[in-house]
């Protein structure tokens, strides 16, 4: 019976429901959402692969590829922490739902080109 006050108050005030998806709350800063790799920055050092507790990353220095199994990633952000060049980051949005198996495959630019590009950027800066 003591709940009466509570429920009546609920009835006569606005509901607590956030009308998602019509109403989306701004994400909190620092939310560990989708993992992204700025592949141009990545140096394929494998640090992330070695640290990943879920072992869902595969980095190939020779082929200059960076692969991630987003279905196995647990969004812990350890890889982001260990990345020496901050090429990894986490968006403040969660990964969208999907109907099919997905894989993230990123191909870095060939080494030479990249170094040149970096140099150019440095020069410009």
């Amino acid at each position: 019976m003591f709940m009466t006050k509570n429920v009546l108050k609920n009835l006569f005030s606005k509901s607590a429901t956030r009308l998602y998806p019509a109403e989306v709350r701004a994400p909190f800063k620092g939310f560990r959402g989708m993992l992204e790799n700025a592949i141009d920055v990545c140096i394929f050092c494998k640090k992330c692969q070695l640290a990943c507790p879920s072992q869902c990353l595969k980095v190939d220095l020779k082929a200059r590829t960076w692969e991630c199994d987003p279905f196995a990633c647990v969004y812990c952000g350890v890889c982001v922490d260990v990345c020496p060049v901050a090429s990894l980051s986490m968006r403040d949005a969660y990964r969208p739902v999907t109907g099919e198996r997905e894989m993230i495959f990123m191909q870095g630019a060939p080494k030479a080109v990249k170094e040149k590009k970096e140099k150019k950027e440095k020069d410009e800066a």
Partner: protein
Amino acid sequence: MTSKFLLALALTIAAPFIGGLVTGIDRKITARLQSRYGPPIAQPFYDVLKLLGKDRMVVNMWQALCPVVTLTASALCVFLFGMQADLLLIFFVLTVGGVFLIMGAMAAPSPYSQIGAQRELMQMLAYEPLLILVFVSFSMVTGSFKIADVYAYGRPLLPQLPLMFIVLGYALTIKLRKSPFDIAACHHAHQEIVRGVLTEYSGPNLALIEIAHWFDVALILGLCSLFWSTSALGAATLLAGAYFLELVIDNVTARMTWRFMLQNALGVGLALSVLNIVWQSFNN
């Protein structure tokens, strides 16, 4: 006679819509009491339509048979109500629905639906005497068991039978499967017996039972309205008030056990009835 018949027919056709609508409003208000936004009012209709379209799945054929009979009986009750028939007769026909619901549930060798069925029986054991008490009190005031005579009586019954209205409220709580007496099955299925008596009914069969439940809701509301038979407005206020109270009680109590229900519903119900009947016979 024909006009009465047509009226009863119309009522029977309208009853599931009334019942469904009431259920929809019920769910919305319940949600609001819990500070939720709640489903659309028409949600019960969507549910039933969907269920009708599901694949048939039964444990045995009796499960397909029983819901139809249950629905028939429930509809018949409303029809009889519309015909302003004998209250006892309505009561007996109501039992038909209950009995077939239980038989269908027991037809499955599934412990949950079996336990649910047993508990449904306990519920019937609790609410049937209460309903009868109410009817008896009516008959004491109006001199007969006929609904027609309630209307013919010309005065609202509530002032004479206030306690009996509470007794009917008890029966209502049990029949509507509301807390604290949502014992044999409850709408939000977080119960120790899964969905109790409804566990094994699925798809179209469940839909039929749901529709039967709407008929029952309409009927019970009709019975409540008899307490203020002289004015449509009065009856409506009474119903809305009673139903709202029901919802609040549903939301401010825990579910009790069937042992408690039997003791409490029968004990309090009998005590209130005796008080009311004695008081009323002194009055006359």
